[in-house]
Every structure is written in structure tokens, then in C-alpha cells.
């Protein structure tokens, strides 16, 4: 089966052709947002950081912004900096430009005040718009897809209907040579027996289980009960009593595929099949981790309902909770509640997901895209010390 994608200079393939306007530091967030608001093809990549970051934490933020700039869904990039921050605009620009020739940068302290900097940014983006409007998609096999699988606002329907449907989809995509990436490490706690069976070798299982144990150790060292955050109050109200129960429902989303690789947050998935990425359960941080791993699209199952999207990739929202499918129908792409009522099988659900993925890949906008949800954040790995 073939699909149509945009080919990038670094030989990756994207399903969208967007302009990334990237903040190097929180101070210029409003500038970045104002530029992106005036350019329909542009997305604002703003965050609370870029300064006061030390060591590995600072390096990870830089690398994540670089990976967003070189993400295959982006056809052009504008880096916007202030001039005195730790993430140096010119360095980020050089790092992105090495793979994405349509990259520019500007430093506010060299350009002018807010108004002038916004105007200059919009001018650069208008030039990018002209460049991008001339680009055509090319026909390529489905194996060029990397799909991120995520769950948020889970309830009892997640593990019974929506995640198992994703599992069917994941099996089908992997059989066609595609890549699946998933994470949310905390939400595998309790599902280790299943994970162990699915891991292709001991090294991969050791990597995953060590990351799960690290989180558990943190809770124990802090003398806190994980319950209340994992599962959250919303999960608990939705019927999930323990993290074990939540995790056993979450792991359904990768189906019976072997997990053939395990990578750190900020690394790219390189092997066809299912790759585990060590991400937190936090929805925005997880989305960043999956897109940094190369996901061109995220399928997001939700029981309680969430409107969020993500700047770098379209998000397909799936729910099997009929109440939310009604109340928040503006935000839901796929309603699988008929699995709960017995009118639809999980396999049928998987087919619906597959068809939606193909149409989204080929250009059909998801609800979150149409509504303008393009959330973004960086992921901190150390506290703010300075």
C-alpha cells in the first residue's frame, strides 16, 4: 500500500508541511506566538525554559528543540532567541540547518523591540510560505510511517476497547514494515510479565524494567504513595483502582508485537517494529518524546476526554467512552464505544483506526488540528537550581 508524503533533505518523510517557529527561551514566547498566529502554516514551539539549565538537562532541551526543527512534518524553521540565554540561537540554527536547509534565526536583542521582532519574523515566515506552497508529496510505501501510541485521561474503557483496538492497528502496521513508538514508563508498572514476553531479548527487557524500577524507587525514597497521581484522581473516578490495573490496560495498545528496541528520551527510533521510548506518563512530555523519536502522527486514546494536540504532529483522538464521545464530540476523531456495547469487535475497531490513520497521513485534518490545538512543552530532567 502506498501513501503520499513530503520528502525532506535528510531523507525522512513527513505527513505535513509546516513552519516551526521555535523559542530558544521563555522570554520570547509571546514573540513566537504572535508570529505563528499571523501565519497559518506556522506553529509556535514555546516553553518555560532555555535558561538556568545545567548539564544533561540543558543538553536534552537543546537536542529536543533540534529534533523538532528537523522533524519531517516541518518544511521550514525560524529560530527566535533573546540573546543572553543558555540555548544559543545561532547554535540551534546551525544544528537544524545541517539537516533542514529552510532554516533562519533571529536574536531579539539584535533586531529590536517586540513589534519589530514580530514583524521581521512574520516577513521571514511569509517567504517560507511561498517556498512550501510549491512542494509536492511523493508516493511512498506505508513502511515509511512512524506512529506514536499514547493514552491520557484513561478510564475503564481504555483497557477494554480503545487500547486493544490500537493493538490490532499496531500489529497491522508492523506487518507492513512500519514503526510504532510508545512510552509512558510509569504506566507499565504492574505489566512487567506481559512486557517481558513481548521483548525481543533480555537487554530490552532489562532497559525497560530498570526504568520502571527507577520510578518506583523515587516514590519510595520520597515516601509517597504513587496513587493519586498514578493512577490519577480522574483515572480512579473512571474505575481504575491501581497502577497495575492501569498499566495492564495501557500495554494492550502495542498488541502482540515484539518490542524490538528501547531508547532514551530524545533519541530517534531506527528499527521497523515496536520501539519503547523512556517517557513520563505526562501527556505533553510523552508527545514530545514520541515526536523526538520520529513519530509523524500520534494516536491518543482517552476515556475521560482531552482536547490537546501537539505542535510537531497531528493527533488522532480515540475514545470508547460514549459519554465523552457525545459531550466532547468536537474533539474526538474515533468513537469506539460500540465495542463496549457489544456492537463492534476489537478487530473492527482496529480497522477503523487504520483507515483513519491513512486518511490523516494523506492530508485529512484531525479534530485537534482543525481546532488549533498545537500544544508544546520541553521536558525537564532536573529541578531549577539557579
Amino acid at each position, binding site marked *: 500500500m502506498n501513501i503520499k508524503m513530503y520528502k525532506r533533505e535528510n531523507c525522512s518523510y513527513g505527513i505535513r508541511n509546516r513552519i516551526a517557529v521555535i523559542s530558544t527561551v521563555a522570554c520570547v514566547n509571546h514573540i513566537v506566538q504572535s508570529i505563528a498566529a499571523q501565519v497559518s502554516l506556522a506553529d509556535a514551539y514555546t516553553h518555560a525554559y532555555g535558561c538556568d539549565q545545567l548539564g544533561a538537562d540543558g543538553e536534552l532541551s537543546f537536542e529536543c528543540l533540534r529534533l523538532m526543527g528537523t522533524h519531517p512534518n516541518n518544511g521550514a524553521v525560524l529560530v527566535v532567541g533573546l540573546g543572553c540565554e543558555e540555548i544559543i540561537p545561532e547554535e540551534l540554527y546551525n544544528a537544524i540547518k545541517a539537516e533542514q536547509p529552510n532554516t533562519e534565526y533571529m536574536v531579539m536583542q539584535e533586531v529590536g523591540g517586540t513589534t519589530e521582532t514580530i514583524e521581521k519574523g512574520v516577513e521571514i515566515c511569509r517567504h517560507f510560505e511561498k517556498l512550501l506552497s510549491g512542494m509536492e508529496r511523493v508516493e511512498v510505501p506505508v513502511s515509511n510511517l512512524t506512529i506514536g501510541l499514547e493514552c491520557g485521561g484513561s478510564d475503564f474503557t481504555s483497557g477494554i476497547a480503545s487500547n486493544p483496538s490500537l493493538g490490532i492497528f499496531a500489529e497491522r502496521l508492523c506487518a507492513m514494515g512500519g514503526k510504532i513508538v510508545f512510552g509512558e514508563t510509569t504506566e507499565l*508498572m504492574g505489566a512487567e*510479565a*506481559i512486557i517481558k514476553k513481548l521483548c525481543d531479548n533480555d537487554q530490552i527487557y532489562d532497559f525497560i524494567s530498570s526504568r520502571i524500577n527507577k520510578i518506583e524507587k523515587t516514590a519510595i525514597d520520597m*515516601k509517597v504513595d504513587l496513587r493519586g497521581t498514578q493512577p490519577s484522581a480522574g483515572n*480512579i473516578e473512571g*474505575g481504575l483502582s491501581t497502577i497495575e*490495573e492501569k498499566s495492564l490496560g495501557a500495554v494492550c495498545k502495542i498488541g502482540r508485537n515484539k518490542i524490538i528496541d528501547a531508547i532514551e528520551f530524545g533519541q530517534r527510533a531506527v528499527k521497523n517494529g515496536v520501539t519503547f521510548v523512556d517517557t513520563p506518563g505526562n501527556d505533553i512530555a510523552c508527545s514530545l518524546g514520541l515526536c523526538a523519536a520520529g513519530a509523524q502522527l500520534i494516536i491518543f486514546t482517552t476515556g475521560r476526554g482531552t482536547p490537546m494536540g501537539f505542535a510537531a504532529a497531528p493527533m488522532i483522538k480515540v475514545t470508547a467512552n460514549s459519554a465523552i464521545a457525545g459531550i466532547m464530540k468536537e474533539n474526538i476523531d474515533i468513537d469506539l464505544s460500540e465495542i463496549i456495547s457489544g456492537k463492534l469487535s476489537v478487530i473492527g475497531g482496529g480497522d477503523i483506526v487504520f483507515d483513519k490513520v491513512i486518511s490523516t497521513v494523506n492530508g485529512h485534518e484531525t479534530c485537534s488540528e482543525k481546532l488549533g490545538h498545537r500544544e508544546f512543552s520541553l521536558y525537564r530532567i532536573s529541578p531549577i537550581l539557579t
Partner: protein
Amino acid sequence: MKKAILLNENDNVATLLDDVSTGEELRITDVRNNTVNVVHPAEAIPRGHKIALVQITQGEDIIKYGFVIGCATVDIKIFQYVHIHNLASLRGRGDLV
């Protein structure tokens, strides 16, 4: 009739697909929608929450999806409501240290 789903034959709880009141008829089905049993809940249970299918002793494992999801903190009678008031996680319990 109201329904609950038994996800694995080794489970000792089923998950409600409808709200039920005490004594109401409740059909337990498997994942293929075949009826496994018809029971009467010992108390009201909300949709999405769990019902005990057997008597469970304090300290015993609660099984769902064929795996342990926690343990009973008190004795649980057959067809009683199972949730955070009588089921505790065995993981991430820094509060017990």
C-alpha cells in the same frame, strides 16, 4: 439486562459496563459477548468499576486481565463492589516505608 465483562477466565473480578443497583440482574459476559453468568450485586456499583465474582480474603490477590492488579485490604464478599476502599496497589507504595 445490565452487563459486566470478564476479561480473562482466571479473573476474580468483572468490570461493570452499566451502573447497577443492589440485587439488580447483571449479566457477566466474556470478551466475545458470550454469557458466563447472571448474578445479583450485593451493593450499588458504578459503570466502569468492579464487582467481586467470588469471596476474596484479606491479603488475597485481585486478578484482572489474568494478572495481579493489587490485593484485598479487607475480606470482600461475593458480588461486592471492589475499588480503592478495599483494593490496594502493591507498587509505588512509598507511604508504607
